[in-house]
């Protein structure tokens, strides 16, 4: 299929091919060819080689987990973006752009704003970096007690592994849609192979290979994303994007709880408040972001990193939403194709609303460029996996196993970390192939992230800025975060059915944050620590 041959920059695509002897577009048409597969294979092979080569720079656990705390600003910025700009982010933001059109851009605004404020003020991140810890749970022990560290680490790992549980499925749907492969089994095998590849070079090189591959991925994917954005705009045209407002009942105002397009859920005030809290908390304390902070050379570099990262965080959400909006414009202008897509969602287990964007890109992006973008996206997928795997396995080793078992050698710690990586990988495969998400993917991520964030926020903020925070308060807040599990789809159904309520994930998420904050304060006031804690990570006056 020739690129751009199916339509001109004209919103009236439905009449473009009819009666003109040109073939009607099929849902599974794609420009993906053997050339694109070759590009992807070459890229993945080179990632393995780099992982092997990077092993020579791993000397001790600090090198393995935080790159020896040697990251300078540009490298830290590239690797932070490389981790956070994953295939999953692109997929779920494009999904929201497809279902909620322009209104979904409020998330980009929220995240960029949060990160910028944190960067300008140094709130939390400055003091955390100054404390010279390697993980958030390590801070819990320094400030409160070892018990808080272990409990906090367990909740963090539960939340984190659940959170990344659907990454594999999202990646599978991307590859299925973009390559035109419809055989579910062959895609499952491909994704299993990719996961094994990630495990291989993560285990070998730790954070050092993560840093190097993140850098390459940032450069390739970043460039690819800008080019694809241009292709999307060229394909749909200004008239096509305007037609969303004039003809297709597009959704623009996120404060309006009703979605006029009818292609997805509405947003509204309450959800905006929920996302402000979730995104603001995650920007400070989501472990992978914190890991980058803790890898920086100094607290000042960490603060600068956040300020500059606000741009990357804005783009990582806004550009994929734009692709999703383009996808909506493309499908909305071709009712037959839209109907075929909606039928596929109902009948084919491997097609969901997540698949819309890659199905669209497969038709408009030319071969060669499609391979490069796919390689970049798969590389980003692997980059996200290796960073998260390293993060959670590091927490398991340092913050659960070591405190319980007692003194452990460096060699033992690295071994336990590597074993944890494989165990988590196996769990991801099972969960990703089995769990059916009931809402959009972003909704699932916000809920599972809440389990950790709702307890971490009062515990860390209180620990850094309130001397009266106690270990009982911290334990209560962290365990209170488990209430966030009630916001998962199946649990919401049970709650509404059992108690004749009409609550949703938004209500329960907000309730969880409020509950954790209240029990932290109440627990600290009612059960103070015996002695005043030392000031940990306090900012020195200049």
């Amino acid at each position, binding site marked *: 299929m020739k690129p751009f041959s199916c339509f001109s920059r004209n919103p009236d695509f439905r009449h473009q091919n009819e009666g003109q002897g040109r073939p009607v577009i099929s849902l599974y048409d794609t420009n993906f060819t053997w050339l694109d597969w070759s590009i992807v294979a070459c890229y993945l092979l080179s990632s393995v080689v780099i992982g092997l080569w990077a092993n*020579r*720079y*791993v*000397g*001790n656990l600090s*090198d393995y987990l935080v*790159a*020896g705390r*040697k*990251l*300078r*600003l*540009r*490298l830290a*910025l*590239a690797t932070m*973006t490389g981790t956070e700009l994953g295939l999953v982010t692109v997929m779920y933001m494009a999904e929201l752009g497809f279902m909620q059109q*322009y*209104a979904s*851009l409020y998330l*980009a*605004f929220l995240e*960029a704003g949060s990160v910028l404020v944190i960067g300008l003020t140094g709130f939390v991140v400055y003091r955390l970096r100054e404390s010279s810890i390697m993980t958030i749970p390590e801070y819990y022990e320094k400030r409160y007690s070892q018990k808080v560290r272990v409990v906090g680490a367990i909740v963090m790992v539960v939340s984190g592994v659940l959170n990344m549980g659907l990454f594999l499925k999202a990646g599978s749907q991307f590859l299925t849609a973009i390559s035109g492969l419809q055989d579910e089994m062959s895609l499952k095998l491909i994704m299993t192979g990719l996961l094994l590849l990630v495990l291989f070079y993560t285990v070998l090189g730790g954070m*050092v290979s993560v*840093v*190097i591959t993140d*850098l390459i991925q*940032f*450069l390739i994917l*970043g*460039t690819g*994303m*800008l080019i694809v*954005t241009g292709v999307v705009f060229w394909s749909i045209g200004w008239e096509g994007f305007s037609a969303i*407002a004039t003809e297709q009942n597009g959704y*623009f*105002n996120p404060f309006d709880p009703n979605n006029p397009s009818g292609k997805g859920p509405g947003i509204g005030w309450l959800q905006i408040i929920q996302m402000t809290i979730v995104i603001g908390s995650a920007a400070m304390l989501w472990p992978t972001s914190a890991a980058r902070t803790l890898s920086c050379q100094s607290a000042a570099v960490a603060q600068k990193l956040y300020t*500059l990262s606000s*741009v*990357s965080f*804005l*783009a990582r959400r*806004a*550009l994929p939403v*734009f692709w999703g909006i383009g996808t909506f414009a493309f499908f909305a202008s071709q009712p037959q194709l839209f109907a075929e897509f909606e039928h596929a969602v109902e009948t084919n287990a491997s097609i969901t609303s997540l698949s819309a964007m890659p199905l669209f890109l497969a038709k408009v992006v030319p071969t060669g460029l499609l391979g490069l973008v796919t390689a970049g996206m798969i590389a980003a997928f692997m980059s996200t996996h290796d960073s998260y795997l390293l993060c959670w396995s590091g927490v398991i080793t340092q913050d659960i196993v070591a405190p319980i078992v*007692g*003194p*452990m*050698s*460096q*060699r*033992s710690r690295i071994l336990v970390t590597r074993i944890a990586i494989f165990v988590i990988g196996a769990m991801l495969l099972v969960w990703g192939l089995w769990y059916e998400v009931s809402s959009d993917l972003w909704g699932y991520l916000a809920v599972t992230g809440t389990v950790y964030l709702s307890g971490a926020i009062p515990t860390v903020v209180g620990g850094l800025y309130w001397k009266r925070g106690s270990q009982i308060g911290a334990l209560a807040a962290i365990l209170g975060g488990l209430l966030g599990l009630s916001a998962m789809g199946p649990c919401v159904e049970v709650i509404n059915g059992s108690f004749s309520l009409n609550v949703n994930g938004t209500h329960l998420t907000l309730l969880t944050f409020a509950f954790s904050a209240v029990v932290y304060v109440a627990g600290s006031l009612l059960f103070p620590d015996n002695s005043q804690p030392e000031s940990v990570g306090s900012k020195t006056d200049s």
Partner: protein
Amino acid sequence: MYVWMTIWTLLLLTSGLAFLVVLVYVSYGVKAELRETLNDLKADVDESRAHEEILDRPIE
């Protein structure tokens, strides 16, 4: 609706342009930074080999 469209269009333009600037900023100096970082790490590795760190000594 047109007010919102204007706001979102400006946001999209800003994000695209700003991301391009970040891409150029990172590309410009990252090679030197990577070399310095890898040299620092190599120095760490060489030093730990020279002093034969006891990897099997239990640490808290």
